[in-house]
Structures are given as structure tokens and as C-alpha cells.
């Protein structure tokens, strides 16, 4: 069993972190619960704490505060080798002087598994990873994707492993091999039913791999949800920016006494039910370019630029001092100069100080 439960996890790399100074903390406190056999992604920019979180789960780091539970078992104080997890790193780790077979057998031999069982397990895993014909080769002679498969194999080979953690495993893989390895991962996930946690800063990797994506920034979780939730209802403007291509339009706006959001003076209907609550904060409108279209009436704009990216066009439209991006499907008209834009009200969110207003 490896449902993973993180309780009030905080971590600092300093010897004496000050509780009230955010900069002292690499992880500023998070609670997460992941089900057994799930596929999860940690997504965020470099330095947001996602690798720290991964290392806390695998036990390479001890948290400053909080606890890590695998199922019912508290593993916070256990060594990585004693936890039933494996980890695949950004740069492929193989034991250069060993053959592929010995590499895969290494974690089992270290744990005193009988030779016959080692033999059987290694062949089983090698078949799964398409490494069977290379078992006798020196591991150092393999290409980067082959080496990364060995790293993964050393995790899969252990029968006690219930979760595998991936730390940006495709960084050094050639682009044309990336999709192959990625689909291999998906296939393995479905086949072996292990919990998988995948760290990346690439939204495509995260959204295609995971059933739940945890978006992090500055050592905090800003949103944990399904890819659809992250796309349709970002809880923070950062999530809106970070996910989607192009990212969400985030437009500074005002909220009047009646609770109506006004963009450059024009009233804009929003999905939020109590906009008035946000009046004295910094308010912004968030709407994805996918939910912006040209209409007969609405916000008067001037078209500044149209970029054709194949199946659709990205239009940069000027509204007063704001620049609004719109995604216009093939076959739909784009006015050559002036026109009117309409936002899909159900998918236009109001944000106060960066956070969504419900």
C-alpha cells in the first residue's frame, strides 16, 4: 500500500529557520493526500520547491516539520532504502562498471534477495522495458533514454516498491524519444498499478501524465486539481499564466460599488458570485484566450497582430491600455482593424491579490 499522505510538511535548508521569514523556507507548509496507484504531477518553475518535496517523500531529506505517511505507516524518520519507494533522477544514474543485468539486480542483491528470484525479476522487468537484448551489455554504453530506463527498472524490480518518484526524468532525453518514453511510463503505470509522482516544469508532460496536477510556486501549493480544473478554473493567476499556451489573460480591473467588474470602464460579467467582497484589494480579470471571441457588441478593441499557428490564430487586441489575447479557430473571421470582443462569462474569473474570488 502506498497511499501517500503529507501532513503539514515544512522544510528549510537553513540550520535555524525563522518561522516568520518566508525566504528561510524551501517548503512553506503543505498538506496533500494521494491515493494508492494514482498518477500525480508536481508542476512549477525552477526553485519552487518541487524537488525538495520529492526528496522529502523519498527520504533523501528529513522535513523540518511535519510528517510523511505511506498508508498508515509513518515513514518520516526512515532512510530512503527502508521506504518502499524508488526515485528516478533528472540525469540518468547507472552504475558504469556493471552490466545492464547487474544494474537491475543491484537493489535486490543489496537486500539479500535469493539469486534465483533476482534472475526471474530482472528478466521480467527487462522484458517490460524492452531491455532484454541488452542485459549483458555494459550499462555505460547505452544512450540516455536506455540509461533512464535502467534507473526506472531499478525501482520496478523491487517487489516491495509501491511508489515511484520521477524528478524531471525526460530533461536529457532527445525530443524524438521523449514521447516514446512518456508513453512507456503511462503504459507501465496502467500495467503495474504503482503510485507515481512526477516532477516537471513542462506543462505538457504534467497534463498528459497525471490525473492530479499540483502546481507550486515559492514553496507553496497554489492549486491541486485535475488538468481540466487547472485549465478552466485556475485558483491563482499564476496557474492561469503557467498552464496553457498562450497563458490566461490577466487584466487589471476595477470593481464598482454595485459589485460589477469594470475593464477600462466597460462592465464585464464574471463567474464569481461575490465580486463586491474584493473591492479594496488588487483586482484582476482572468480569461483564457480560448474563451475570448469576436462579437457584434462588447469590448471595443483594435487588432494589433494576428499570428497563424496552424489550427487557429492568436490575435493580439488592444483595449485601452490592456492587451487581450484571443484564440480564433480556423474559418472564423478576424476584423482587420476595429471590432468587439466578448468574454465567456462562465469562464471569466475575478481575482483579488492573485487569488480567485468565488
Amino acid at each position: 500500500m502506498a497511499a501517500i499522505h503529507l501532513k503539514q510538511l515544512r522544510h528549510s535548508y537553513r540550520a535555524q529557520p525563522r518561522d516568520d521569514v518566508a525566504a528561510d523556507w524551501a517548503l512553506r507548509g503543505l498538506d496533500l493526500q494521494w491515493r494508492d496507484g494514482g498518477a500525480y504531477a508536481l508542476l512549477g518553475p525552477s526553485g519552487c520547491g518541487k524537488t525538495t518535496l520529492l526528496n522529502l517523500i523519498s527520504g533523501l531529506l528529513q522535513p523540518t516539520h511535519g510528517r510523511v505517511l505511506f498508508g498508515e505507516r509513518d515513514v518520516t524518520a526512515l532512510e530512503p532504502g527502508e521506504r518502499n519507494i524508488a526515485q528516478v533522477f533528472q540525469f540518468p544514474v547507472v552504475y558504469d562498471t556493471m552490466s545492464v543485468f547487474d544494474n537491475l539486480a543491484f537493489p535486490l542483491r543489496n537486500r539479500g534477495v535469493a539469486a534465483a528470484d533476482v534472475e526471474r525479476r530482472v528478466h521480467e522487468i527487462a522484458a517490460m522495458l524492452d531491455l532484454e537484448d541488452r542485459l549483458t551489455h555494459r550499462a555505460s554504453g547505452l544512450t540516455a533514454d536506455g540509461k533512464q530506463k535502467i534507473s526506472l527498472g531499478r525501482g520496478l524490480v523491487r517487489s516491495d516498491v509501491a511508489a515511484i518518484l520521477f524528478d524531471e526524468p525526460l530533461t536529457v532525453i532527445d525530443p524524438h524519444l521523449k514521447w516514446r518514453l512518456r508513453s512507456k511510463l503511462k503504459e507501465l503505470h496502467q500495467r503495474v498499478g504503482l503510485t507515481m509522482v512526477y516532477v516537471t516544469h513542462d506543462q505538457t508532460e504534467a497534463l498528459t501524465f497525471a490525473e492530479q496536477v499540483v502546481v507550486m510556486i515559492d514553496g507553496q501549493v497554489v492549486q491541486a486539481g485535475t488538468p481540466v480544473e487547472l485549465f478552466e478554473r485556475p485558483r491563482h493567476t499564476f496557474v492561469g499564466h503557467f498552464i496553457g499556451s498562450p497563458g490566461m489573460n490577466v487584466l487589471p480591473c476595477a470593481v464598482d460599488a454595485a459589485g460589477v467588474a469594470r475593464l477600462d470602464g466597460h462592465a464585464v460579467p464574471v463567474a464569481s458570485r461575490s465580486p463586491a467582497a474584493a473591492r479594496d484589494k488588487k483586482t484582476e480579470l482572468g480569461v483564457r484566450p480560448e474563451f475570448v471571441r469576436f462579437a457584434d457588441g462588447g469590448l471595443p478593441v483594435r487588432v494589433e497582430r494576428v499570428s497563424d499557428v496552424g489550427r487557429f490564430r492568436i490575435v493580439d487586441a488592444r483595449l485601452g491600455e490592456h492587451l487581450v489575447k484571443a484564440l480564433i479557430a480556423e474559418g472564423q473571421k478576424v476584423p482587420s482593424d476595429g471590432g468587439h470582443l466578448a468574454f465567456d462569462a462562465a469562464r471569466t474569473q475575478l481575482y483579488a491579490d492573485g487569488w480567485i474570488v468565488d
Partner: protein
Amino acid sequence: MASTKVHNQKAWWLVLPVVLLVAFNAVIPLMAVVNYSVQETFGNNEFFFEGVRWFKDVMQSARFRESLLRQLLFTAIVLAIQLPLGVAIALAMPRKGIGVSICLVLMAMPLLIPYNVVGAMWNIFALPDIGLMGWGLNRLGLDFNYTRQPVSAWVTLVAMDVWHWTSLVVLLTYAGLSAIPDAFYQAARIDGASKWAIFRFIQLPKLKHVLLIAVLLRFMDSFMIYTEAVVLTGGGPGNATTVLSIDLVKIALGQFDLGPGAAMSLIYFLIILLLSWLFYTVMTRGDEN
């Protein structure tokens, strides 16, 4: 296909400085030695061609064989001590914090002391009556006197070389260790590897190339040891510590036997070349991928 290469013979002038430097620095002195090694002289700048006579003489002399054996033994002993010891110290050194600089400075210190000063220091340090080491060993009940007993002389000579040069192995190894990415250690922890397994399967393979350099440098330097040994024991007691270089100086400059001295120099040089090539070949075997 027509060649589009531009032929500019004037470019040779740019190579000339290097050619001259190498010529005067290496080729011409070596040729002078080759020249002496095939001739006999009785002074007055008169030379007589002798062919390979001096080479035969040197190869057949018991004196040369004994010096060579002493030299091989000395090199084997210091390599056998300095390499494992150097690696062990490097492994034990701190990886971060203030300790790093302190250790590095302490380690670099012996390397910065002039060779003859090292010899003089150990000469005094090992004196049985007033030297701390010699006096201490005698106080412990050991009969230690490096000017009279061959074993004492050898112990002192080896101890001096270990003190002087182990640091080089330490520094090279430490640099090699620092270049191993953290992920290897992390993966090993997750794979449940023991400390020995980490050393055997991660550190040692990754250190292979710096250790090759360490072996070559230490081999060549220890095989040519002269200054410290001369200052410490002068080759004695008797001929007990007369290694090749000391013997060579006795023949070429002490007895002024230019021919045999030159022949011995060339044989000495060829042995170093051969053994270095051997170490290199053995240690880089199977490196092709």
C-alpha cells in the same frame, strides 16, 4: 575535386619558436647524452667511438641491477602506501563548511616545501639523539638509527616520501570526488547500497581517471627521487638507499665516467617510459566506449 586549400609556406615561421624551444630544451640535450653513450673519452676533448659497449657494461653490472631493484622496491612501497592512504584521506575529508579550506590548506602544505628542505627536516626529525621521531622510537624501545641501519634508513625514506607526496593523491582524489553528482549517492541510498558498495561501484569507477594521473605522477616522481634522498641518507648506510638517480650521479659526476653514465641515463629513461606506458595501457583498458 579541386583542392581549395591555401598553401602558405610563411606559416612555418610561426612554428619556429616552439621548434627551437623543444630543440634546446629536450632534443639537443638528449642527443648529447646519446652522443656520450657511444664514446669513450680520456679528457682533452678527445673521443673514441665504442658502439654499444657501455650499454652492455651497464646491463651486466651487478651494481646497476642492485640500484634498479632498490629503485623498484622504493617506488612499489610508496605507491602501495600513498594511493590507498590518499584515497582514504580524501574520502574522510569534509565536503562543506569551514573544514574544507582548513583541510585543503593543510594538505597542500607539504607540496609547497622545497625538496632539499624536506630532506633536511627529516634528517633532523629522525636523528636518534635529538630528533623527535628518532628519539621517540628509541624511547619506545625500538633500536632506530638511520645512519647505521638499512631498515631504519628505509623506514625514514619511505615515511618522508609518504609525508611529502600523499597530499598530491589526496588533492587529486578530492577533486575527483567533488565531480560526482549528488544523484549517484541519492540513487545508491534508495537502492540500499552499503558504504563499501558505494565506494566500489560509484566512487572508484568515477575516480579512475584522476587515479590514473595520480599513479603516473607518483610513479615518475618516486622513480626519479633524488634531492630528498641525498639530503637525508646520501644513499647510505653503505649503499642501502642508493637508488638509481643517486647511483647515476655517483657514476657520471663522482667518477666522471661520461660514457657509462650516459648509457645508464638512457636505460633509466627508457624504463620510466616503458613502465608509464604499461600503467596507462592497463588502466585505460576497456575505455573505448
